[in-house]
């Protein structure tokens, strides 16, 4: 494949949907996991990983056709890709561009690592974490996750 062809593939435009750019390299699949996009979803997806970028060295890009991500969906991405930018595309043009911001509370995104925590039982609740400067704190058992947050994503 020629370089030009590769580039063309990477930037092939979508008519309507969302482009998530500047994802930390290697995190594209985790981004999809956070967004709840699995193999069984019907959206047309393109994923590019380890793309050279002047701004952050290497980056990943995800494009989702015919789906405009909502703010609370994209903010979850900030956990693992704090520099990501979200482009909402309408009729081939960028309709809206925004950064990501970690929300103060994360519900149902991360599993509590504490096996004794009530959120790891069959109770009808979602895991709930408060975002604190050094990481995430379980609002049920006070357990603090400081690193490898992606490992705990549900």
């Amino acid at each position, binding site marked *: 494949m020629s370089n030009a062809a590769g580039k063309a593939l990477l930037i092939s435009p979508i008519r309507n949907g969302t482009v998530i750019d500047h994802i930390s390299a290697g995190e594209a699949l985790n981004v999809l996991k956070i967004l709840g996009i699995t193999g069984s979803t019907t959206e047309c997806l393109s994923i590019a990983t380890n793309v050279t970028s002047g701004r952050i060295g290497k980056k990943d890009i995800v494009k989702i056709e015919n789906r405009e991500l909502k703010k609370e969906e994209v903010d979850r991405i900030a956990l693992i890709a704090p520099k990501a930018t979200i482009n909402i595309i309408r009729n081939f043009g960028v309709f809206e561009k925004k950064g990501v911001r970690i929300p103060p509370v994360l519900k149902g995104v991360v599993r509590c690592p*504490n096996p*004794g925590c*009530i959120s790891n039982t069959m109770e009808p609740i979602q895991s709930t974490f408060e975002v604190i400067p050094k990481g995430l704190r379980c609002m049920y*058992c*006070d357990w603090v996750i400081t690193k490898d947050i992606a490992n705990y994503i549900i």
Partner: protein
Amino acid sequence: MKHIISIRDFTREELDGLLDHARRIEQGGYAGNELAGRILALLFFEPSTRTRISFETAMARLGGERISLDCVEASSIVKGESLADTIRVISGYADAIVLRHPKEGAARLAAEFASVPVINAGDGAGQHPSQTLLDLYTIREHLPLRGIEIGLLGDLRYGRTVHSLTYALSLYDVMVHAIAPEGLKLPQNVIHEMKEREMEVHEWSDISKIIGDLDVLYVTRIQRERFPDAASYYSVASSYRVTPELLAGGKPHLIVLHPLPRLDEIDPRVDSLPHARYFEQARNAVPVRMALLKEVMG
């Protein structure tokens, strides 16, 4: 609606308010019918006789009634029903719920589903705020909480009462001496948090080096099952035992506390010394829990 879930939910002013209230109660400042016609539900999913009886006593002294689910009944419920459902049902019967549960965070969950106040009476290795309140209360009845030096002795790693007491003490201007054998030391994250909160924490492994500086000695149980064999347990347990000989090196006003039940941590000969305040501490559970019940249902 006010729940009592974690000591972390309290400001210093709120703690002081509750402790002052408990003192007024202890001095006879209650009529005995404040909670007449009210029903307290005690849900104990694991045994804790002392905590349960003191809540029952506190409710009876305020003229209220109680219903309870002991741990045998509770464990049969566990098989078929979620805690969330149990709490929703009991909310329809009682005016407040006291919950003891083996899972951490159970009380926080209960508060989400309850339509009446929930008091956490211990959730697994998590919080037990009424114990912390009565520990603080006992210290405060003897000494000003400001400027004193407190020794925490024993299993500081797994001891839940110690972690929540340490947190509460960090709201006051005290110095903490953490005295523990290797392997049972105060966790680094707890020490780190206390330092962030500008509390002075010093670590020791030999109690005799620091006994002379202490105003309060808070003793906790060292559990046999934390050690690989009986011999290593006995050697550690004997060097952390509180005896009249050890206390002879302490200040005259030094008070010794223990959340009870004790095993061999405190020599029975200590019981008759003026330092021994652990039975008084156990008695204080009643006015402190009366204050809590009035706080949530009054």
